[in-house]
């Protein structure tokens, strides 16, 4: 009997607190009707500007030949949805291959970047440690200038890394920004906690894995997602270092067949081989839009996790410096 009595008032109180927060303070005059209206219209347009193109692309990618023909191109009103474009794209061919490459580079690159970033961020986060100032300076200085396109290309090519997947990871493996975000989080962990572990005989590595990491799950997740998104989106590295179009990641495929509007190769969509499926071949436009959707989907899936941590101030704190 007691538990509902306890929970119901607290829930009510929470709702009351929420509405209090949502309420206009007594001293503030209510906005005029046109003012309120134009605010709503502008913010509505902002939301629409982002969501509408995505919506059209998704709907078109799911449309049949007939629907595309009737719409005269992109489809706004969904009718007779079919997955055949996706089935065709993912049953082998250029896009399947590129998807594998992008996923592989993203997973391996993110793990690699995250591990060395965590190590360095911790190594630079202990106040007064040997050489930490000059080493931090070496990291920060990378904000001010880059090596330039041509010297980078010559270096990668002199290492024999042209046409290797390593060329998509190693040159851009470290983001100084991510490192600084993580370091400033580590510096916020109370020194007493770390000192007491040291007194108990823990090594620095032990302190990092057993004390610092469990306290830093949020920042590690955010930095990991930042790295993952940047690997997934990377386009220029591949343009620069890969001549072999069999090794192309998804972004280059997207550029070739959508931005440059080159004809999809005959086998690009793959062939629907599974007899049970009984799908009509998808129209070219639906296939193209399905490539766009495949390129954006992982970002959309990762986004809620990134967004959840905005509120924790991880990023805002770092942006403010």
């Amino acid at each position, binding site marked *: 009997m007691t538990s509902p009595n306890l929970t119901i008032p607290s829930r009510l109180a929470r709702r009351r607190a929420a509405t209090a927060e949502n309420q206009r303070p007594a001293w503030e005059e209510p906005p005029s009707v046109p003012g309120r209206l134009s605010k709503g219209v502008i913010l509505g347009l902002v939301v629409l500007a982002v969501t509408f193109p995505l919506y059209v692309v998704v709907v078109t990618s799911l449309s049949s030949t007939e629907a595309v023909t009737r719409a005269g191109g992109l489809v706004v009103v969904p009718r007779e949805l079919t997955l055949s474009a996706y089935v065709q794209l993912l049953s082998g061919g250029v896009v399947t291959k590129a998807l594998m490459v992008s996923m592989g580079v993203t997973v391996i690159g993110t793990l690699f970047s995250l591990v060395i970033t965590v190590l360095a961020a911790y*190594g630079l986060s202990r106040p007064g440690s*040997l050489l930490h100032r000059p080493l931090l300076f070496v990291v920060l200085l990378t904000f*001010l200038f880059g090596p330039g396109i*041509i010297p980078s290309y010559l270096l990668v090519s002199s290492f024999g890394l042209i046409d290797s997947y390593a060329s998509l990871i190693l040159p851009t493996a470290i983001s100084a920004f991510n490192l600084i975000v993580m370091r400033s989080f580590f510096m916020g962990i109370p020194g007493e906690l770390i000192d007491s572990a040291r007194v108990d005989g823990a090594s620095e590595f032990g302190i990092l894995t057993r004390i610092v990491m469990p306290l830093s799950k949020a920042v590690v997740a955010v930095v990991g997602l930042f790295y993952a998104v940047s690997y997934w989106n990377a386009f220029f590295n591949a343009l620069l270092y890969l001549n072999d179009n069999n090794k192309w990641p998804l972004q280059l495929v*997207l550029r070739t067949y*959508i931005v440059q509007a080159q004809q999809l190769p005959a086998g690009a969509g793959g062939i629907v081989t599974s007899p049970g499926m009984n799908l009509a071949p998808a129209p070219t436009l639906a296939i193209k839009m399905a490539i766009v959707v495949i390129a954006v989907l992982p970002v959309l899936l990762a986004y809620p996790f990134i967004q959840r941590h*905005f509120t924790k101030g991880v990023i805002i704190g770092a942006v403010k410096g």
Partner: protein
Amino acid sequence: MTTVAESRRLRRSSRGGANWRQRFRKDWPLLLMVSPVIVLLGVFHYFPTLGNVIAFQDYSPYAGIRGSEWIGFGNFARLFAEPEFWSALLNTLTITGFQLVFFFPIPIFLALLLNSVLSVRVRTMIQGVAYLPHFFSWVLVVSLFQQMLGGSGLLAQSLRTHGHGAFDLMTNPDTFLLLVTSQAVWKDAGWGMIVFLAALSTINPALYEAAAADGANRWRRMWHITLPGLRPVIVLLLILRLGDALSVGFEQFILQRAAVGSEVSEVLDTYVYYQGLLVGDFGYGAAAGLFKGVVGLVLILVANRFAHMMGEQGVYSKS
């Protein structure tokens, strides 16, 4: 005697050598942890930076840096005599200037608008949607714009069904400036709000209440409280943008160069890429890249000095 020995040991440890050795014995695991990052930055950032010396060479990939002939400032002389280079520089500065006027204020405006929304849930929802395109790649953004505004895009398609003529914003050089700016706004204006929203949240609400009690209306409160509260952030970002005037984004332009032609879309970065890598004129391309890098560095340092003079905290603090 022990005290004398102790004090001597103390003195010695505070003097160079032994102290360093001691600190090294304590801190070597930390140094080991930092080393992979330092090695990677050394190999892929600092070492190729030195490679910019080929800007002073008639560089041939077969002869390498050691075997190529040194020609002093020959590449730079060619660069400064080349109208295409000046056109790329002019395009870059035009785009920066245009975006300073038509992009820069939008995040401030949006942040003010969003901040005045009372419902926390609506605010969070709009923030979520507005930040999203920041995480899209440029290839994706250009693809989406093409599908909406291009020759076979949605807008052209509906104009056609209503009997209007052909329409293609993606290949029109006259509207290119507008196009790239609206792409930049679409992608990053929402994300740009983050800094201003953070600054708005630090303004003391009691100030507004006091001003309202003194009879200041909505607009006067914005003018006398909100904008002064945002001023440091606005000044800092403005200065940073000016310091970064030579960078307008590379991928966005390389993706659309073929469609609208190099006359309007060639910026410094794409110029380096085409002249240096695609034409294979490495020394010349490196000279153009080095010009951009050095002028850019000077601009950033000047901008930062300027920020300090204005009493703001710059990108890096002086300590």
